[in-house]
């Protein structure tokens, strides 16, 4: 129901403006803090108007956190996660919707249930697997006696090892599986009329051809939406990179670097907290997700307008 009266209009605008202020004030404070000197940022009443130190602070924060290579790292990982998630979600949903096989619903529900299991819950086993991605196979071979057999026949001790710690693969792979994306794609694929599938079959297109020529072009909007959400998600990852990367110089991610700038008991050791640097770094780290959202939003709004219905 859409109701339009001057009073209601006013009320809704007041609520919207109020919400906007709540969201913007912290960002404004961060920006202000990033423009002040060390003394100003630590002086008693909180400063509300920007100073002139922004450029200097930015440079110092950038250098101190080694942001150049870290941005490249994070971009690689975030892009990898986005591409991996979309690909995996798309083909999983494709199999679930368009192929009729035994246990289809069971598999769907199993995937769906993992929606309730975020990375944090399974972080210990995931770490174990990342430390040696072949552990499960090793276990199976040990249990079934295959490794004993190989050892007895050839004298070679079977010890499979594939270490994913300190690598892009290790950073990306555990984040790729996505129940949300699979679910999103499944719901979209379910809206594709059967006749369209049959028309493609009559036209001689096989399943992969149909996926590539029909489903993917039709799900552009979905891809844009999913890519936006997942890019921001991957960019903001903190816990997993913190665990899996010990070689921070080579594989550090920006959010982990940023956390080092945030002053706490441990890092300042009683010195003056350098909030102005932390806030300057925050501004920088925030930029790529904001850019992606603005860019993609225009894109999927266009997608929504162009729907051929």
């Amino acid at each position, binding site marked *: 129901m859409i109701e339009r009266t001057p009073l209601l209009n006013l009320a809704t605008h007041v609520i919207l403006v109020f919400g906007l202020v709540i969201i913007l004030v912290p960002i404004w404070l961060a920006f202000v803090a990033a423009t002040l000197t060390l003394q100003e940022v630590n002086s008693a009443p909180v400063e509300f108007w920007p100073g002139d130190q922004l450029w200097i602070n930015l440079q110092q924060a950038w250098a101190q956190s080694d942001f150049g290579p870290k941005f490249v790292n994070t971009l690689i990982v975030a892009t990898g996660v986005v591409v991996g998630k979309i690909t995996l979600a798309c083909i999983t949903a494709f199999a679930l919707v368009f192929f009729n096989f035994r246990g289809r619903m069971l598999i769907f529900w199993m995937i769906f249930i993992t929606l309730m299991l975020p990375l944090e819950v399974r972080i210990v086993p995931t770490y174990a697997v990342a430390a040696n991605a072949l552990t499960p196979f090793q276990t199976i071979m040990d249990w079934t006696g295959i490794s004993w057999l190989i050892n007895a026949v050839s004298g070679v001790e079977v010890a499979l090892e594939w270490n994913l710690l300190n690598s892009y693969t290790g950073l990306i792979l555990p984040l790729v599986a996505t129940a949300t994306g699979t679910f999103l794609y499944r719901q979209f694929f379910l809206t594709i009329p059967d006749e369209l599938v*049959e028309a493609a*079959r009559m*036209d001689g297109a096989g399943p992969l051809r149909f996926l590539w020529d029909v489903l993917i072009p039709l799900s552009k909007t979905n891809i844009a939406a999913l890519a936006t959400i997942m890019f921001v998600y991957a960019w903001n990852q903190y816990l997993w990179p913190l665990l899996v990367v010990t070689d921070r110089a080579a594989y550090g991610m920006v959010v982990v670097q940023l956390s080092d700038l945030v002053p706490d008991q441990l890092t300042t050791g009683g010195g003056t907290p350098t909030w102005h640097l932390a806030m300057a770094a925050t501004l920088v780290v925030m930029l790529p997700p904001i850019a992606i959202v603005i860019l993609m939003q225009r894109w999927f709004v266009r997608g929504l307008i162009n729907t*051929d219905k």
Partner: protein
Amino acid sequence: MAEISIRNVAKTYGKTKIMDGINLEIRNGEFVVILGPSGCGKSTLLRLIAGLEEITGGEIAIAGEVVNQLEPRERGCAMVFQNYALYPHMTVAENIGYALKVAGVPKAERLARVAATAKSVGLADFLDRKPGQLSGGQRQRVAMARAIIREPKVFLFDEPLSNLDAKLRVQMRHEIRRIHNQIKATSVFVTHDQHEGMTLADRLVIMNKGTIEQIGTPEEIYEHPATLYVAGFVGSPAMNILPGTVAGDGRSVLMADGQAVAIPAGFKAEAGQLVQIGLRPERLTLMPAGQGGLQATFLFFEELGSARVYHLQIEDIPMCVVLDEKLTLIEGQRMGIGFAQTALHVFDGASGRSLTRPSAARKVEEMA
């Protein structure tokens, strides 16, 4: 160019039997219309021919080759769907040419053929549009063009006109007939609309509850319905049906209200057999009370412009009479209904099979 043989075909979904023992021979270049109410299995039969559904029993052969195990694309069939099933993100040209693209036809040849096909269905000016920018009739043309361009052996139509408005439907009907006369591909057309069936078909197949009731030319079906079901389904308004019992002499049928209708000689009916008499409304005339073969009470009429449908009643059994003449009648007035002996159909009360069907018509069907 191909004939289609459907031999003893059965289809079940799980434990539900959709159809059983369907036999149908479709000649090369013939336009066959499968007519029946929704849920009678006509679309399923079409999809079995197309290969979109698997056959549970029996076999289907196209051009002499059994196609039971073949994929749709290997059967040489093209299909036009009820909801057009156009690819929404492709332009008209891409839609029409998609089958050729999949088949790997070189781009230059593909574009030339798309242009030629589009021209033949009157779409030459719309090649760059998306389906969303087209009207219903234009979308239907795109669907037709998409089928034509593959030069299929067999054309399958799954109620292609049911989403169009009445005027456009007639227009597209003519278009389909014109295209058929031009390319002479064997065509199977499924519909629940008897006008479409009667006007388009070389031969009609009437289906009901997963079985074929009758196969014949539209004229045969109309003039000599083999069963009570066909008699009631084809024709508008529907055939009048009057229940009765064959009299002791076997020459007339006694109705519940005591009226007797004389029936022509030469059909096997025993005294006391329950029968249904069928009379087409168009073959009846109205006469003053006391004359004609039946007496009825006038209720009301419907104006069609070119004619009128007069509604009458014999006891509580409704009767329709279609006449060009505009009579002035009063509700409750008694009228006589006149008809020729040849207009009379008699069906067995239990099986619904026709008892009066002339042997000539039966012979035609055997030849077919």
